[in-house]
């Protein structure tokens, strides 16, 4: 049985004439340690799919299972616990809390856990060291560059050592060099056994993945191994 399974996932926003279908029966399965890129034009449903995978957005139909757990059969609090234990999020716009230092931002997922303050600090420092920011622990997000903010966001996503990393356009606001740096980091996490699902518009980024899901009009258009040349040809 696959680690992540999506069965007939559909999502419609609104009702009646204003109803807008974002997903129309998507099926997929992802194994542990896979690095999956999700691509597609704007409005194809890839962000909706990612939010469903993030246990943040209930599908209108279908089931989403992780490690055998039917996520949307859980209560709200159980889903929150699932997110904390299983998922790390990296968003396009960094999503660091502006009044917290990088180390405090990275410690956020640990805030609700019964761990000693020192242990939390050490875990955050270790995660920041992993992304090359061990010298900027006390900096506020607006005191570091965009690439460093994104790396801090990656550190926050992995501080809990979750098995799954969800990334939404992780290099959307970065220049090419910094993008490559961040993608190298994410790819290394995948190589270490983390399951990575990444939504991206960038063929270069998708090239780091081992598998590509193409979406169009709320449907899964193709599912296969990545081939950068094919991706770029698009």
């Amino acid at each position, binding site marked *: 049985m696959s680690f992540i399974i999506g069965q007939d996932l559909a999502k419609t926003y609104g009702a009646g004439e204003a109803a807008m279908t974002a997903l129309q029966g998507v099926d997929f399965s992802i194994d542990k340690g896979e690095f999956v890129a999700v691509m597609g034009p704007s409005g194809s449903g890839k962000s909706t799919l990612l939010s469903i995978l993030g246990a943040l957005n209930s599908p209108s139909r279908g089931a989403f299972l992780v490690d055998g757990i039917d996520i949307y059969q859980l209560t709200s609090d159980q889903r*929150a616990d699932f997110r904390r234990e299983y998922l790390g999020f990296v968003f396009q716009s960094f999503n660091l809390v502006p*009044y917290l230092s990088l180390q405090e931002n990275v410690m956020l997922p640990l805030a609700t856990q019964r761990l000693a303050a020192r242990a939390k600090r050490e875990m955050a420092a270790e995660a920041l060291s992993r992304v090359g920011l061990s010298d900027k622990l006390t900096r506020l997000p607006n005191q570091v560059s965009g690439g460093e903010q994104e790396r801090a966001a990656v550190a926050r996503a992995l501080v809990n050592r979750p098995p799954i990393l969800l990334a939404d356009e992780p290099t959307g606001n970065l220049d090419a060099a910094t993008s490559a740096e961040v993608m190298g980091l994410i790819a290394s996490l995948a190589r270490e056994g983390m399951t990575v699902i990444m939504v991206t518009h960038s063929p270069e980024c998708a090239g780091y993945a081992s598998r590509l899901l193409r979406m169009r009009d709320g449907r899964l258009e193709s599912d296969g191994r990545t081939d950068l040349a094919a991706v770029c040809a698009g």
Partner: protein
Amino acid sequence: MTLKDIALLNLRRRKAKAGFVLAGLVIGVATLVAMLALTEALTHEINHKLEKYGANILVTPRTESLSLSYEGLSLGGFSFQTNEIRQSELALIHQIKNAGNLAAVGPMVLGVIQVAGREALLAGVDFAALPILKPWWSYAGGEPGADQVLLGSEAARILNLQAGDSLTVKDRRLEVRAVLEPTGSQDDGLVFSRLTTAQELLGKVGLVSMIEVAALCKDCPVDDMVNQIGEKLPEAKVVAIQSVVKGRMEAIGHFQRFGLGVSALVALVGSLVVLVTMMASVKERTAEIGIFRAIGFRRGHVMRVVLLEAGIVSLAAGVIGLGLGLAGAQVALPLFSESHGGAVALNPWLAGGAILLSLAVGLLASLYPALMAARLDPHEALRTL
């Protein structure tokens, strides 16, 4: 990093909003504390006065005529009329049911005398009872002997007499034993002698013009004692001076109720300030709350962050409001106090109550914004990014 740290750091970042919430609560708490502390200080002052009052029951003869007065109470005809109290009836007062509450019973005979061609009021008193009946009296030397008098300060000035001088009343030579320090009362204009001396000089042997009774505890059943003395002395008029004090206590009661009303209104406005500010804060932090939820915060965790912020600000507001309220009461006390002074005491119940009230108002007013934050759809919240 704990939820408390997040709350503290957010407060530090949003100083203006936190300051606004703080100000709303501080004004409410300070008003309440000032009002309560002021009424408490005034009540304490009244109680203190009541205990220091000396005589709080006056027994005077029933009379229809008014000629001279003493302490604002009519002593009609005491010098010329026959309506006086027999001294032997004094013993009856000690037979009342609440005799145990009697601290002192002081007979007084009053009459007009001629001193160096001037009219003066002579008061014969029982000097043994005076320390209780008139505790504010102060004069040098011991109590006057049979042929000695004590002069009120004003009487001494007008009669141009001082301690050691002598005066003659009805051919009896009397020595001025001492001059009373000014009291601000009618006592300043009187000549005092022993009861028996005055009775002899005024021709009222065995008679007294009035009786002052002291029941020195504030919770004494003075009204009952007035009735009991009235039953024993049916020919006399028995008046509780406490009725004057009670009137003032009622005024304080009205002030207290008014103060509580104003405080409740201010607290309501304060809670609305908290509600509106916290709502705005939650709206402003929608994306942040989305992040919290995405990384695994439960609804309860989000709620706790918001309520912790409100709790920290409310606690600070309670302490600051308490201090400001007490200071305000201290400043305002001379405006309301007859003694134009005194100190506002820190009542632990008031202190605890003020802080608890601040916490309760702050937390209750933040409950809805906290619920709103907890119920934010994390997916929608993240879309605001």
